């Protein structure tokens, strides 16, 4: 960089230097941002003091005094606000995880359909994507929830599926598993099978690298992971007791239930996000030049292997970064849950607890911190994955 001095004044000289100038500008910008936040925080603290309010998190250990319908951990109205927050957080994690899985599957299918040579298939995906992504997600949530609670029958007229599954507008009632002592054998078989499958996969790759021989990896893995544990399970005389739901009074008792609120939120978030992911996938696949496919075919590689080993690994490099944003959007959009009464972290600590305790500032800080941490975690995982599939330059 040029270090020619135009002036004897050291400050001006520093300013005329491109590198020094950029440092100065960055320092000033940072100082302004910090000053702004300091002012806002200070102002908030002073104003809360003027209103006679302090910032205290001790309310977290008081009894919450309200009930939550979907609790994956032990919780009652005698539990603390902190427990209510954890219950809400787990519900948020559940919807985010389930949503990410379904939206990815549907999104990939949509993306491939969009590129199909079949006119009908291609247009169906096109119309779906254009309709779904141009309607706000809150409307999807309310629409699907309304559809479920209005169109499905009430508990007494529930759709009976073999006396074990019951579908009605209170959700899908299904048997819950009560594991008997002998069940450990099944779990052990599964773990051993999984380890074997992983080892075999590596072995098969090495074998192919050295001899060019292709082994039936998928069949062997399937037998090790699925068939073997099932065989052990039936051999031991099915060591699971099923708690089957039965209609009693107003509702079904026993078993477990997937509530309409969960189903509606899950479907709405997944189908909405899938429309965006579909476009990402299409962009990714189109970014791989057709010459790659032709080259693979010329080498005698089969079509399915071309897709799996040539096209997709290269397409993923384009797909993963925007996919990360879609996962973050899905997770944050799950905060719309309260509209239909799904008890996520916003509905518990950021909703009922906030209202009962009147600690708006504290509750909102907690909710913001939770979403920030969740988003950073998702980003970290996706960045790690992105690094793994990155083009290795030699």
């Amino acid at each position, binding site marked *: 960089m040029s270090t020619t001095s135009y002036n004897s004044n050291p400050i001006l000289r520093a300013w005329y230097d491109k590198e020094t100038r950029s440092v100065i500008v960055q320092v000033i910008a940072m100082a302004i941002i910090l000053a702004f936040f300091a002012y806002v925080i200070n102002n908030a603290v002073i*104003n809360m003091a003027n209103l006679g309010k302090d910032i205290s998190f001790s309310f977290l250990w008081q009894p919450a005094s309200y009930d939550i319908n979907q609790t994956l951990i032990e919780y009652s109205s005698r539990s603390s606000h902190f427990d209510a927050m954890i219950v809400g957080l787990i519900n948020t994690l559940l919807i985010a995880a389930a949503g990410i899985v379904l939206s990815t599957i549907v999104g990939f299918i949509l993306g491939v359909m969009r590129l199909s040579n079949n006119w009908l298939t291609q247009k169906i995906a096109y119309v779906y994507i254009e309709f779904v992504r141009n309607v706000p997600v809150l409307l999807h949530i309310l629409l699907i929830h309304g559809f479920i*609670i209005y169109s499905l029958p009430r508990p007494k007229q529930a759709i009976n599926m073999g006396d074990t599954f019951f579908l009605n507008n209170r959700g899908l009632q299904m048997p819950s598993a009560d594991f008997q002592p002998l069940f450990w054998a099944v779990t052990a078989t599964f773990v051993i099978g999984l380890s074997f499958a992983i080892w075999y996969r590596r072995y098969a790759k090495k074998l192919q690298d050295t001899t060019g021989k292709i082994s039936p990896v998928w069949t062997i893995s399937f037998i090790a992971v699925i068939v073997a544990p099932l065989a052990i399970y039936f051999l031991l005389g099915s060591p699971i007791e099923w708690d089957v739901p039965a209609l009693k009074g107003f509702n079904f008792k026993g078993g477990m239930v997937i509530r309409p609120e969960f189903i509606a939120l899950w479907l709405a978030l997944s189908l909405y996000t899938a429309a965006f992911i579909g476009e990402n996938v299409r962009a990714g696949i189109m970014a791989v030049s057709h010459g790659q496919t032709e080259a693979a075919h010329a080498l005698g590689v089969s079509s399915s292997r071309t897709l799996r080993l040539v096209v997709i690994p290269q397409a993923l490099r384009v797909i993963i970064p925007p996919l990360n944003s879609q996962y973050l959007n899905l997770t944050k959009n799950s905060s719309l849950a309260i509209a239909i009464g799904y008890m996520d972290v916003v509905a518990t600590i950021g909703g009922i607890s906030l209202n009962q305790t009147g600690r708006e500032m504290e509750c909102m800080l907690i909710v913001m911190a939770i979403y920030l941490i969740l988003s950073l975690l998702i980003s970290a995982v996706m960045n790690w994955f992105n690094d793994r599939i990155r083009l290795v330059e030699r």
Partner: protein
Amino acid sequence: MKLINKVFTGLAMTAMAAGVAQASTLEDVKAAGELKCVVSTGVAGFAAPNADGVWEGFDVDFCRAVAAAVLHDANAVKFVPTTGKTRFTTLASGEGDILFRNTTETLSRDVDLKLTFLPVNYYDGQGFLVPASLGVTSAVELDGASVCIQTGTTTELNLADFFRTNNISYEPVAIETNEEGLTNYVAGRCDVYTTDVSGLAATRSKLDNPADHVVLPDVISKEPLGGAVRHGDDQWADIGKWVVNALIAAEEMGVNSKNVKNLASSAEGKLPAINRLTGAEGEMGAMLGLSSDWAVQAISAVGNYGEIFERNIGVNTPVGLSRGVNAQWKDGGILYAAPIR
């Protein structure tokens, strides 16, 4: 969306709270020429816009009475609709000057949320609305039922306590707004809808066939509903308090919207208590920082307590509530206004 809403409320609170703490609310309201009144997003009979978009209802009339007493114009009110969750933040941030929103007076709200409650204007309690076809006659028969609740109220706590102490189970379905709660109830997602009995009567009046639904006789809590203002401005709290008292006292003394202006020439005009109310005697208005005819303005604008009740939620309205405990103490109720003296 709610989150964004709350963040903005928080920012607004940050920006405005300094002003709130220092200046007098009365001066602010006079300077603005309008009263910002925090009401609900729509509860039939209590606060809801009519077909012409004009706000009407029991709570709305109390807002109008305060505006009439302070600004001599019952229409100088800006209604700020809030959900159960946002109401106190809205009031605390200065986006509202006074709150009339079916709000239960409790210790923690009074002390910890820094509110000053005005006299109770409706004595209520939490009840249950069920379809008549269920054949339920008492709330203790509701074992295993799904119960729809509007969040952001004292309702969740009463409900949890009631079911726990009676050793019966239930599935709570907590919904953000009254409308969405009603949708869930109508669709049969819940067997029961619960909120204050007055709210249930209002909700029932909006159903297609109100006769198919019954409010169970069990009342599981005490819900004294009243207006509220922020802590720290006693003059403004006094104004709210005595406007409510004046409306209740007016009914007790037989003063109503029709006769209040002609009292001076009638026989009742000789009674000192009535003269103090109308400002013909004493300095009541000046003590409050208002004009001497403050109560006359309020009563002529919306009527006395009885008129407000009958017009909005009385037996001849779709809501159809009887006075019950909300009758004057002379008539066997518990409405008892402190004397204006």
